[in-house]
């Protein structure tokens, strides 16, 4: 199972990087989202995957025992998801704003700080 997930991570990385290198700013954001998902999956895989054993202590117990999914990568990914949401939201609005002011979505036309070019 890990093998397939590893391949999927690779696919996410590849498509994320490819999308980031496009000229459209919307594609840039989509690329960032895909890449972010790839990174999350990478972290998740490093904690190994466990089916059906969430890291939650039974109501009768005080200590988590037996087989359980690693809680540390999960905590990390949770943070990452939330932060990337902040980033994405800001980026989407920024693109909108940029288009409104500059009337373009093409990154190649934004590579100078001079107003008159």
């Amino acid at each position, binding site marked *: 199972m890990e093998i397939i997930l590893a391949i999927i991570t690779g696919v996410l990385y590849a498509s994320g*990087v490819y999308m980031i290198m496009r000229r459209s700013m919307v594609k840039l954001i989509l690329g960032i989202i895909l890449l972010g998902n790839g990174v999350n999956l990478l972290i998740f895989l490093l904690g190994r995957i466990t089916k059906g054993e969430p*890291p939650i202590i039974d109501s009768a117990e005080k200590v988590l025992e037996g087989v359980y999914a690693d809680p540390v990568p999960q905590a990390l990914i949770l943070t990452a998801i939330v932060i990337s949401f*902040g980033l994405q939201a800001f980026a989407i609005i920024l693109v909108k704003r940029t288009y409104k002011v500059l009337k373009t979505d093409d990154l190649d036309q934004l590579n100078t700080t001079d107003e008159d070019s």
Partner: protein
Amino acid sequence: MLGAVLLGLLFSFFLVFAGSYFKGRLAVLSSLVPISLFVYFLTYIPDIAQGEIIYENYEWIPSFGVNLSFTLDGLALLFALMITGVGSLVFLYTSAYLKNHKYLDRFYGYLSLFMAAMLGLVLSDNLMSLFIFWELTSISSFYLIGFNNDKADSRKSALIALGITGIGGLLLLGGAVLLGDVAGTYRISEMLAMRDVISDSPHYLLILLLIFGAAFTKSAQFPFHFWLPGAMKAPTPVSTYLHSATMVKAGVYLLFRMSPVLSGGDIWHTILIAVGAITMVYSAIHIIFRTDLKGILAYSTISALGILVFLIGIGTQAALIAAAVFIVVHALYKASLFLITGIIDHETGTRDVTQLSGLRKVLMPVAIAGFIAALISGGVPPTLGFIGKDLIYESTLHYADSAILLTGLAIITKILLFYGGFVAGVKPFMGKLPEKFSKLHLPSPLMWVPPLIMTLAGIVFGVFPGLIESAFAKPIAMTQAINYEEFHLKLWHGFTTILGLSAITITAGTVLYFTIKPKHSLENFIAKFDVVAPKDLLIKLSEGFALFSRFWTNSFQTGYLRHYLSIIVGFLTLLLGYLIFSDFSLNIDVSTLADLTIYEISILIMLLLGVLYVVFTKSRLAAVAATGVVGLSFSLLFLFYSAPDLAMTQFSVDTLTVILFVLVLYKLPKYLKLSDSKLRIKHRILSISFGTLITLLILRVLNEPKNTEISEYYADYAYKLAHGKNIVNVILVDFRGIDTMIEISVLIVAALGVFGLLKLRLKTRDKK
């Protein structure tokens, strides 16, 4: 002594505020600063003559061994008196020379800043503080050379001078750090005991080269000499003060000061003698080809500096005494000649020696000073120049087996310097006075008295050499020579070989003066060789460097985001690829695939399709929707693999993102394919190889054993310490609670940013 160093510095700060008072007639008052310092240092002469060495130490950064330690011995006193003495006269002279100049106060500020730095340099006992003062002299010299900052020539010369001496400063820092490391101290007085340790150290050669680099650039030794003629663009008082009497001698001072510490190996002597000899002969020959008075003086200064380096290289006691005396001689006559040139330039408006003649009729006192200066320069008795020249011959004559060669070189140099001194000091005053100069009149005494004082001092010291001997020569020989022997300076030694050589020098010099006339044709002739001159080579080198950096920058800084990204990703791919394939092993356990359920397979297929759809679709709305599919597949995946919290978060976040996207979508332009297919293929290859490497990397990592220590800690203590049963939640809100709080503030900042962008109303001006 700290006060003495700081006085100049404080005065230049003071001028920033009170400068306007010191412009007009009050400018003369500025010279009270160097004069009082000169008197202050004079009072030390009796102590120093007794062989005393005065130390003063102020802690600055003791943990680095960097302190303001000052030491006053014969050598330091000689330089201090020279700096303040010549300084006093130059300050007086300037008040008349630059009378009513718009920026006279600024000029005085730079001058006194320079004087403070130079005093600090020669008084420092700590190599680090010496370095700092060294740099300060370079910087103040930059301002002074470029004082006429409305002229492109001045600015260029100032920059070249700063560049060359700045490189030297860096070398000095390197040498100082290395030397401090080897000796275990930055104090020069403590290094004296380490002479053998230093010369046996494996870094000895490197230290020498660094220190030499510093000294040669500062003191304009071949092949770094070319900045000095360029520096003559500065107003004449600056040339007098910095570029003949004091700053350019800083390199000589450094070598002189370090000679008891560093002269342990033969290489010290070999390099210094070679470089000194080349410099002195090379620039002495150049004198013949110059017609600009300041150019002649610049080359004769370089030649004199060559003699000093050469003498320090010989390094015997006789040579060091010769060097000490010659420093005084040179300061006296060269500063006078510069001041005289300044007067001529000021009155006639030209420095071209072919156009000047007969000026004695209108500038008599100046002519007298010029004539005496030429005598000192030529080493004619009874001036101090004669003693200086004799001492030089004496030290070369007794230098081991190459005595004849060295003496020969010294004589050639001295003959040419004799010629140069007479061309600059006598020729403009001789012959017929041209009509256009007949209306000239003598300038203010403030201008012609200083050179007269200096030249007369040259005669007084020559007649009474005991003054120089007890005040400087003996104390210097005691501290700087390795084995001190008694000696006496005398004007008359009887009929010896040296006297014969002196006679040859003076005769040959006189003959040269009457046979060779400065001509423009000679100047044009030498200009043909500029192509191979060190100056042009350096300028070409720096132009080439600028060209290369422009090419380098342009090829990396294109301004295209995709270009930057492809460089970063490409580099990472190469690095990662090298690391993975240099130790390649792939251990794939296919057996786990048997456990796959139909749910998992369908989620994975959905995910994969979603990703591919995002990449290849032509519709923006479809791409955004596909991103949503990817996100939702992720939340299912998380749910499946024991991460319910992640599933919840991913679900809500993804829904929000898609909604947000769709809300702004309708305002965006058409979703176009912008890049050409060639570039797309290139990017695809790059992305796919990067993705493949990531997959391989994960497979490698999965083979490694996993460290579960941290997870176990949380599993054991989540309930006991934090009373929560959902461990992921406990980690976020309790164990790492502060992190989460900061994360929330990040989100708040993002939210404020979004809000701001939405509400922002641009003025029409900004919209353009």
